[in-house]
C-alpha cells in the first residue's frame, strides 16, 4: 500500500511495522523513476507499507528528518530508522533491505 504523508500524519504512518519512506521532490526526475520502482514493488508485494513525502511541499519535515537530497529512501521498523539511502534504489536493493530488517 502506498500512502501520501504530510506533516500531520507522517509520524503515525511510520510508527508500526516495517515502512519504506520515499522522500521526493516535485520536479526531481530521478524521484519519478524511483516512484515507478516503488509502484512495481507495491504490485509485486502487496503487504509492503510505503509512505511518500513530498519535500517540496513539506520542507520543514524534510529538514527535521535530515533530508539533504532527493530521492532519499528511509526504512523504519516500529518507528525506528533502520536504514537510509540517498539516490534511486534498484528493486533488488530495496528487497535486500527488506530481507535484512523486515523479518527480524
Amino acid at each position, binding site marked *: 500500500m502506498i500512502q501520501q504523508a504530510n506533516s500531520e500524519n507522517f509520524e503515525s504512518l511510520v510508527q508500526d511495522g516495517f515502512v519504506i519512506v520515499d522522500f521526493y521532490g516535485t520536479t526531481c526526475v530521478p524521484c519519478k523513476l524511483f516512484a515507478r520502482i516503488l509502484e512495481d514493488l507495491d504490485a509485486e508485494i*502487496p503487504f509492503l507499507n510505503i509512505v511518500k513525502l513530498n519535500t517540496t511541499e513539506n520542507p520543514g519535515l524534510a529538514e527535521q528528518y535530515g533530508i539533504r537530497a532527493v530521492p532519499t529512501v528511509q526504512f523504519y521498523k516500529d518507528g525506528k530508522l533502520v536504514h537510509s539511502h540517498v539516490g534511486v534504489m534498484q528493486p533488488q536493493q530495496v528487497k535486500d533491505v527488506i530481507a535484512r530488517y523486515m523479518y527480524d
Partner: protein
Amino acid sequence: MQSKLVAAKDYHEVALDIPAFVPDQAALQKELDRLRNPYVTWEPGGTAAAGDMLRCSLHSALPRFQKDSIRFVAGSGMYNPTLEALAIGMQAGETRTATLPEGEVALTVQAVQKRVVPALTDEMAAACKLPGVRTVAGYRRYLLAQQRDKAAAQAAWTLAARIKRAVLDESAFVLCKADWKQAVERELDRCRAIARQSGMVLEQMTPEQFAGNIPVKSYAELVAMTQDTCFDSLRCCLLGQHYAQNDGFAVTEAGYAAFLQDYAATWHTTAEEARAAMPKETYTFNQYAAHAEEVWRAHADRLYRDKNPLPDAE
C-alpha cells in the same frame, strides 16, 4: 566583422546514412505490463508458484528461523532465496525441510494467495488518461513514440555533427584573421571572467583547477583549444547569420536580458558579473553560431523521423 560567407553549402544536400529505429521490445512490454498493476488480485488456495503470496510457519533450532507466521512472496527475493524456492510447488498444510548454511529449517505453508493478473484491456489503457490514448494499441503507439523521440534526439546530434563538418568544409568564406583573433579573445575573456568569479586567475590555473571545469591542463592548452574551436565557431556564426536571413531568427535585447538573469540565478552571481562573463558582442556571436548548429540538428531530427515513421494512429 569583416569576414564573409561567399557561398553556403546547402545542408539539405549532405549525404547521410540515417540509422533505422529499433524499438526496445522488452522495455515496451514492461511498460504495457505495468498497466495491469492496479488490477492485480489475490485469490486463496492452490499450489504455490513464483509470485504468489504465502503465509508460513518456520521451525528450527535457529532462533532467527523460529516463526509462527510470516508472509513473503515466493521467488521475489525479499526474504530468503532458499526458503522462497522451497515453498514453490507446495500447498497449504504441507511441510518441507531446507538445509541452509546456518542449519535446518522446516517450512509449513499455512496459506497460499495466488497472484491473478488480468489480461490487458483497452479500459486499462484509457485509465492512464493520456491525451488521445483510448486503447492498448494507442498506448503502445504512445510508448513507441517516446522511444523514437529519444532515439531521434540521440541520432540527430551525431548526424548534425556530420552535416556541420560537410557544410564548413564545402562552403566558401572570406575569413579575416582579426575576426578569428577577436573570437578567441572574447572566449578567453569569458573564461577569464568565470575564473575570476571563482577566485582564480585564468593564466595561473593549475591542472587540478581546470579538472572538471575545462578539459585542458594549462592556460597554453586552453588557448590552443580555443583557437581551434573559434575557427569553427566563426564560420558557424557566419552561416547562422545567413540562415537567420531566411528563417527569422534574431538575437534580441530581451533575449540577452533573459540570459543575464538566468546566468546570474544559475551561478549565484550579479547581473554585472554575468555581463562581464558574457558581453553582448560575445552573446550575439555565440547565438548565431548556435543557431547554425540548431538548424542542422533540427534538419537531422526531421530526416530521422521521416525515415522512421510511427504506425498509424488509432
